[in-house]
Each structure stands twice: as structure tokens, then as C-alpha cells.
């Protein structure tokens, strides 16, 4: 019971310390936030709000192409981009633009289809636009140009085929010209899935993949930061033993018939509670704000628990090596940085196409490495053997460190 009293008192003091709060929560979040800023938000999928462009069109074409073009632009696929209204005469279409009921009017001439299948005729599709607008009419112009270019390509194909046939003393029939033109159109528009020269991906899909990548990177970074600073919290909490020793409160505690073992247990418990709160808050924050997927909830809880024990044990051991706060400062500054960075080396190698197995093994020299390995395995959904082996390694390592740290302090205060 007294151990819990000591732990609660220590937590109260820690959560009133700006220094402790900064290292427990603010810095890990800031560093992850910095990476989020560099790589992009990585948050939930963002959508650009875009008002569809109102377009009026007249189709004077006597053939089929004009109707096909309007059919494409009026299709559901482009409904988010264009709202097409087909009117009977050009004057109505132009008037709609003048009245700002439409941003542009597309005027398809009468010989549009004929131009495609004959080599002598010429036709122009006219775009009538509101001169004060740029974006909407620009998009419409781009779409029309794309379609007309395709048609021009088809027209050239028919022309070349006719020339080649003429060299052989033959003439293409209108049916042959049409078949040739449609074959060209089908190929150039990607209609034939097999043998298509260009693979088109939808922008939405690319964004989702990019976001998933960023979230994954942020997850690894925040995971590494969490582990790094959890171990710092462990050392910070145990360092209060030395602080209390220098302030005389530890001696006073010994004067209250509280055995040293109970006091040391209280300090260990304080460290564990602080780290647990820290990890829970950071993982929740990472999920809610950065959209990080930590893996299965049950396994994440296992990770939080073993890392809590590991960081508390390591802190106890590390601080037991120091005689006073000055030495503890060196351990917390240099020792934890070196071991923490070594432990995080596994994260840094994730981007490497050829991971260095030596470095991967070296990370296991420090408990942070085991914790990092466990978290990465959980996040990547690796085999249960890999996850539980890392967890078990961390537990064994932590038990040894806790025992050593406890023994050293017990001996000192006996």
C-alpha cells in the first residue's frame, strides 16, 4: 500500500512538471508532427471540393461522332466534372453563356463525322466561353481538344491507308475506312485492355496509396519516438530516488519505518504507471490525429504492457549506476540517447532495400531494440512467432534489468 502511495505521489509531481510533460508527450508528438508536415498529412483521405462546370452544347453533326462526343461528356463518369445540357440551336447555347447560365458552349459543326472518313473536307468544333472565367472553360477546351485530337489521329490514319491503297491501285470503301477509324479510336482511347500502351490509374487510388504510405512511415516514426521517450520516462521516474536522496526526503522516508524494498518498489511502480499513461495517450493520439494503424488492438496492448515493464526496469537499472543526479544526467542524456537510437535502427532500415542483418542483430543488444522489433512486427502484421519472440525477449531482458537495478538500490540503502 505504501508503495502505491509513493507511486501516486511521484505521478502527481511528474504531471505537474513541465519538463516531464514535454519529454513524455510534447516532444514525441512534435517530432511525429514534423514528419507528418514533411511527408504530408497522412490523415484521413482528403477530397477537393469542386463545382461541376455547366456546359451547353449543340450538335449539328449529321454523322455519329457528334452524338458520341456528347454521350461521353454527358456520361456518369464525367458528371462530377461537367453538367451537360444539349440545346437545339447555337443561339440558345451562346445566350446561356452570355446569361452566365453556362461557363462554355460547345458547337459541333454539321460535317464533323464526314471529315473523319474523307480526306478532303474540313470541320471545326467551336467553344464559346465566358471571357471572365478561365478554369471551367479551360477544362472544357482540354476535353474537346483531347477528343478532336483523337479524331484527327483517326482521320490521318484513314488518309495514310487510302494513300497506301492508292499506291497499290486500290480504293478503300467507306465501310473499310470506318472500321479502320474505329480500330484506331479503340486503341488510342485505351478501350482494348490487352496490349494497351498506357496504364491509367484513378487519382483517388493513388492518393489512398500515398496516404497509406505516409501513415505507415509516421507509424514507424511515432512508434520509435514512443519507445525512445518511454525509456526516458523510466529513467526520469527512477531518477527521483536520487532527487529525494539529495533533498532529504528519502532519508525521511527511511525514518518512517518504511523498508527500503517498499520505497524502491514504489519508485518502480511510479515509473510503470507514468510510462503506461504515456504510451496509451501517445498511441491514441497517433491513431486519432495521424491516422496511424498500430495493428491488432490486443497485440498493441501487449506491446504497451511489456514496454511499460521494460522501460521501468531499464530506468531503474540505469539510474542505479549513478551515485548522484549529476551522473544520472549523463546517463539520461548520453546513455539513453545511444541505446535509444540503436534500438530504433530497425526503423531506419525499413526504407533500405537491403537491410543490414548485423545492425538488425545489434539492435537486440538494447531493450529498446526488442520493443521496437515487437511493435514493427505487430504493425506489419507479421507472424505470431515473430511477435511473441520479440515480446518474450523484452520480458526476459526487463526482468534481468529490474532485478539488477532493484538489487543495487537495495544494497545501497540497506
Amino acid at each position, binding site marked *: 500500500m505504501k508503495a502505491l502511495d509513493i507511486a501516486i505521489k511521484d505521478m502527481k509531481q511528474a504531471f505537474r512538471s513541465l519538463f516531464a510533460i514535454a519529454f513524455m508527450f510534447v516532444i514525441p508528438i512534435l517530432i511525429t508532427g514534423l514528419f507528418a508536415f514533411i511527408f504530408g498529412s497522412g490523415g484521413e483521405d482528403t477530397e477537393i471540393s469542386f463545382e461541376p462546370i455547366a456546359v451547353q452544347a449543340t450538335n449539328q453533326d449529321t454523322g455519329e461522332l457528334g452524338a458520341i462526343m456528347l454521350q461521353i461528356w454527358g456520361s456518369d463518369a464525367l458528371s462530377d466534372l461537367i453538367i451537360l445540357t444539349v440545346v437545339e440551336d447555337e443561339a440558345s447555347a451562346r445566350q446561356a453563356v452570355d446569361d452566365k447560365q453556362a461557363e462554355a458552349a460547345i458547337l459541333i459543326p454539321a460535317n464533323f463525322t464526314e471529315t473523319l472518313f474523307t480526306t478532303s473536307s474540313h470541320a471545326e468544333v467551336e467553344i464559346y466561353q465566358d471571357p471572365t472565367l478561365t478554369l471551367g472553360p479551360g477544362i472544357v477546351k482540354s476535353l474537346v481538344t483531347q477528343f478532336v485530337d483523337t479524331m484527327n489521329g483517326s482521320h490521318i490514319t484513314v488518309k495514310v491507308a487510302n494513300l497506301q491503297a492508292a499506291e497499290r491501285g486500290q480504293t478503300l470503301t467507306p465501310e473499310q475506312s470506318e472500321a479502320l477509324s474505329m480500330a484506331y479510336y479503340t486503341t488510342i482511347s485505351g478501350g482494348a485492355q490487352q496490349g494497351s500502351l498506357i496504364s491509367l490509374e484513378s487519382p483517388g487510388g493513388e492518393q489512398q496509396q500515398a496516404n497509406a504510405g505516409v501513415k505507415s512511415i509516421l507509424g514507424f516514426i511515432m512508434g520509435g519516438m514512443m519507445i525512445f521517450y518511454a525509456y526516458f520516462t523510466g529513467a526520469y521516474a527512477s531518477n527521483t530516488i536520487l532527487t529525494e536522496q539529495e533533498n532529504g526526503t528519502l532519508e525521511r522516508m527511511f525514518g518512517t519505518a518504511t*523498508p527500503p524494498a517498499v520505497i524502491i518498489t514504489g519508485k518502480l511502480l511510479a515509473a510503470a504507471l507514468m510510462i503506461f499513461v504515456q504510451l496509451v495517450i501517445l498511441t491514441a493520439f497517433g491513431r486519432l490525429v495521424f491516422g496511424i494503424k498500430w495493428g491488432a488492438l490486443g497485440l498493441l496492448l501487449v506491446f504497451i504492457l511489456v514496454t511499460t515493464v521494460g522501460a521501468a526496469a531499464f530506468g531503474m537499472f540505469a539510474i542505479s549506476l549513478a551515485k548522484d543526479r549529476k551522473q544520472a544526467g549523463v546517463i539520461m542524456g548520453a546513455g539513453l540517447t545511444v541505446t535509444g537510437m540503436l534500438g530504433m535502427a530497425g526503423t531506419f532500415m525499413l526504407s533500405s532495400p537491403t537491410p543490414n542483418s548485423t545492425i538488425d542483430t545489434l539492435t537486440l543488444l538494447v531493450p529498446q531494440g526488442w520493443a521496437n522489433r515487437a511493435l514493427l512486427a505487430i504493425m506489419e502484421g507479421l507472424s505470431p512467432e515473430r511477435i511473441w519472440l520479440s515480446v518474450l525477449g523484452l520480458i526476459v531482458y526487463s526482468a534481468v534489468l529490474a532485478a539488477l537495478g532493484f538489487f543495487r538500490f537495495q544494497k545501497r540503502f540497506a
Partner: protein
Amino acid sequence: MEKQFAIEIKDLHRYYDDIKAVEGVSLQIEAGTVFSLLGPNGAGKSTTISVISGLLRPTEGDVAIFGKSITGQANAAKQHIGVVPQDIALYEDLTCRENLSFWGKMYGLRGTQLESRISEILEMIELANRQKDKVEKYSGGMKRRLNIGVALLHKPDIVIMDEPTVGIDPQSRRKILDSVKALNEQGMTVLYTTHYMEEAQELSDRIAIMDHGKVIAEGSHNELVRIVGELDRVELTFGTEITDRLGEWQHLPGIQSITPDTNAASLLVEDSDQALPLFFEAAARDHLKITSVTVHEPNLETVFLHLTGRALRE
């Protein structure tokens, strides 16, 4: 049946490597008394108290608290003791009440017993209206009072106070001295260390004078003063430096000892009325000008001077 003392110190030795901080101290302190350890800084008072409190293990010897050995039955012995350390030992970032609550729990108090005891202590140390303030906002005197209050939470049979009035204002000092008397009136045994002779004289039933790790005298105030008999202490101040110039004065009639300083001297004499004219004659002969004379009746300072040849505050 053998008498049981509140504190019984038996041939206590405590060494720090080669330094003998306490050497062969034996004392018996009766329950319900105020006992002072008087001595200059470095005399071994704090070390003795640390051993009595169970914070230091004795190199040799033992201490019994109501018959329980502080080495063999440490926890049982500690239950009887409340220690007021010399330096403030509180959590500055916690409030006064939070400090009392935590330390109360460390002494094993819980629930309503703890809450009522905290309220009593707050009234006693006159900090009830500042109980929600963090200790870091307190004055030195307020911290001292809280420092004492913490030691009283579990109603100990013995309160050990290690120089509790060091570095505080006269008003707070007065409050602390009054609180010591009040605690004693409630039946508590008080072990008090100080290098202020007046405090020991005012508070104590018995006094042990320590120097260089040893008890050089022990008894009630009157018993101690009788050590020096009816000797008066005369302090002379000279207009010039007197180094090595009072050698001949040792042979003047009625002079017990001379403790010279740069331009002053403390002299223990059998009768100051007879000695003073002799001093003025000797001063004239040695071409020394006496600028002031103070005559003290026998007190603890005189005793310490008599026993060690040094002033208590040196």
C-alpha cells in the same frame, strides 16, 4: 526491575572511514523529558541523532528505543520516533496538505484518522489557512513549522529535533520553542540538538554537551553550571591586537583560564569584583587599552569554555 528509558544509548561509535564522528557516547534519556545535545558544529550531534533515528547503522554499540534495539528491531523502534531533520525535507511542488497526507500515509495513517490528524497538525503549526498553497511559496519559518508538523503526524512518543531553529526569523524561532514546550507538556519525550546555549537552557530538563564526537558533560542546567563552580566569565575587548601578550596574566590571582582572540579575551575567574582591578593594572603595565568589559554569571557557555578552552560558537 530495570528502569526502561525512552532512549538508551550504549557505547555508541560511528566512523566515516577514518573520521570518528561519534566515539563512545552513552546516554540515558527518561520518558517525558526534554533532553538537549549541545555542542558546536561538527561535535557529532547530528550523527548521534541519525543513529538514534535508525538512519545510520552504528559502527559499534547500540541504541534502544523503549527497550527496542534500533539495529535489531528497527521498524518497531522507529514507530516510537518522529524525526525533524535539520534541513527541510518536504516536497516543494506539493501543497502543505498533500505533504501532510503523504507523510501521514508513510507513518501508516489512513482514512478519517489521517484526515483528522492532518487537521490537528495544521492548527498546531498555524498553517490551516495556507494548507492549499504549494510549499515552494512558503517562507523559511513556515517550512520549518511544516517540517516539524510532519514528524508529529503519528503522535510519536519521542520527537527528535535536529537544530530546528537554524536560519529562521526570531518570531518563527519563538513559535518553535513554544511548540517544543507544548509537546513536552503533552507527555512527549523531546531530544533536541542545538548550538544555541540559550535554547538548551530554556527548554531542557537535562543537557549533554558534546565536542569532537564525545559527551564531555551531562546533567541538568544547574548540575552543569556547578562544574565550573562559582566562576564568572569576563570578556575583555582591547584597543589593539593582543596576540601572545596575555601570557603573564595566567599568574594573576583568581584566574582559572584565559581564551584570547585577536583583540578580545574570555577569562574564567573566581570573583570578578576582585579580578577586574588586577586586569586594569596588568593592562596598564603591558600598555594595553581595555575598551570594554562584560561580566557573565556562570552558564552553559562558561561550562563549555571551562571544559574545552573554546567558546561554544567557535
